[in-house]
């Protein structure tokens, strides 16, 4: 029998690609907000703050000239010590984030495979999430040796929850009929996880990653405050020093750079996410 292919597919049209394209308008918004931010900053450091407290918030141009354009002055002042501290904290944040991803995703996989385990673990995850980690610092110091390990633990505790909850939610998001398709072929649990649940979870995993990445940076900076030793210290410890000595320009420079680190990490994972799932994941804005 001849196979006469009905070429009806030419009649049913392919839905055209309608992706979020980058355009100039995408930059105008952030630019306006940035200008407004700088304006308000000037307003505060020249008008709003009482004169004797203005050293706390130097003007933007003073921060640039004294914070960014002094390479090194003494042991702690200048851009170089700030950047060294930032790099020290960035390493802790990235290592902590890596540990969080491995542990958090494994935990989510275990929880997705057993309702019993899910129910047993949830309350404690929520508790860790809401516990003031800073209040635990004496305990952490007593239980764990080594500043690096202590700082990593703070990062992991602070960044863990979004990875676990989003991965778990994603792993459980595959359709019933998609699962049945796998059941009909006698697929193993592992095959189901790798070929169905994990890919289905990717959009959620990336949401979790972006949140956890930001939290990892916060965790690293906060951990620096409490766990430090001689030599190069983390950016959080550096900020603490500037704060105590009332070095306003350096303080603001360090804060800006620490925030930028969070922003870079956030943008990086957004980029990875678009590379990994942008081709198939549907974004609905409702208009």
């Amino acid at each position: 029998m001849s196979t006469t292919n009905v070429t009806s597919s030419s009649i049913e049209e392919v839905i055209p690609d309608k992706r979020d394209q980058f355009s100039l308008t995408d930059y105008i918004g952030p630019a306006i907000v940035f200008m407004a931010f700088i304006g308000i900053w000037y307003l505060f450091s020249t008008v709003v703050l009482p004169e004797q407290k203005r050293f706390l918030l130097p003007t933007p141009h003073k921060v640039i000239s004294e914070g960014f354009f002094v390479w090194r002055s003494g042991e702690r002042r200048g851009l170089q010590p700030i950047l060294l501290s930032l790099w020290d904290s960035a390493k802790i944040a990235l290592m902590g984030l890596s540990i969080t991803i491995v542990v958090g995703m494994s935990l989510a996989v275990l929880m997705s495979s057993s309702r019993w385990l899910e129910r047993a673990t949830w309350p404690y995850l929520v508790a860790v999430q809401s516990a003031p980690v800073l209040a635990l610092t004496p305990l952490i110091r007593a239980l764990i040796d080594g500043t690096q390990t202590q700082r990593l633990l703070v990062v992991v505790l602070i960044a863990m929850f979004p990875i676990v909850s989003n991965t778990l939610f994603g792993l459980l998001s595959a359709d019933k009929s998609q699962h049945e398709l796998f059941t009909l072929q006698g697929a193993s649990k592992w095959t189901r996880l790798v070929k169905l649940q994990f890919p289905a979870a990717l959009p959620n995993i990336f949401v979790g990653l972006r949140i956890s990445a930001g939290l990892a940076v916060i965790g690293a900076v906060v951990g620096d405050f409490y766990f430090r030793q001689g030599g190069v210290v983390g950016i959080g410890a550096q900020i603490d020093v500037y704060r105590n000595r009332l070095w306003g320009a350096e303080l603001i420079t360090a804060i800006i750079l620490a925030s930028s680190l969070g922003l870079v990490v956030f943008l990086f994972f957004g980029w990875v996410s678009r590379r990994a799932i942008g081709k198939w994941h549907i974004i609905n804005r409702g208009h």
Partner: protein
Amino acid sequence: MSEVPASSSALLSFNNVSMTFDEGTKALDNVSLSINAGEFVTVVGPSGCGKSTLLRIASNLEANTGGTCTIDRNSIGYVFQDATLMPWRTVARNVELIAELHKLPKSDRQKLAAEAIELVGLNGFEDKYPRQLSGGMRMRASLARSLVMKPKVFLFDEPFGALDEITRERLNDELLRLFQHEGFAGLFITHSITEAVYMSTKVLVMSARPGKIIASFDVPFAYPRSHDLRYEPEFGELCGKISHALRGAHE
């Protein structure tokens, strides 16, 4: 009428199959039917009468609580109500999926997938993602996926129910062409009497819950069937009889 003994050549046979769910709902009551190679049997019935449960028992997604169901479980094609494509896979990779789950080597499954895509007329769309396809094309991709392993028995769970009428009729024609070309036995579930008569060698009418087969109609029209068959008087007459039986089923 419903007590047809399972013949030895039947590819799928139900013998007094009953189904009571855990919570006590009786879905099926003593259903017997058998389907041979080259037969295309359609079940129509009121919503919630247990039509889909028949397919779920045949495919072992549910275990029947009474009677026996005989089928070669390794040779089932199952087409769901929705296309159940994996959005992260292209059309070609979606069509390969079942062969992949059966651990066929990559070159073999690519070849089989290409053939199946050709059969359903999706060539040229191999690299598209499901979100880029219309509903009808997604259903074609879903059909192609089931065709890859060349199953002897095809189970269809209202596959075209969500499509517009023109697309549905076009896919009816294509499925009939595949049915003749591949020679599988088909068990088809639908709400549409016209679709049932147009596709099938036999139409079974099920009663409201608990589902029982209350009428059986042989469809005398020869294959290949043409689109205009739907407007022949004999076709209309048969549809009328089935509709009448179906109304009885609601009471």
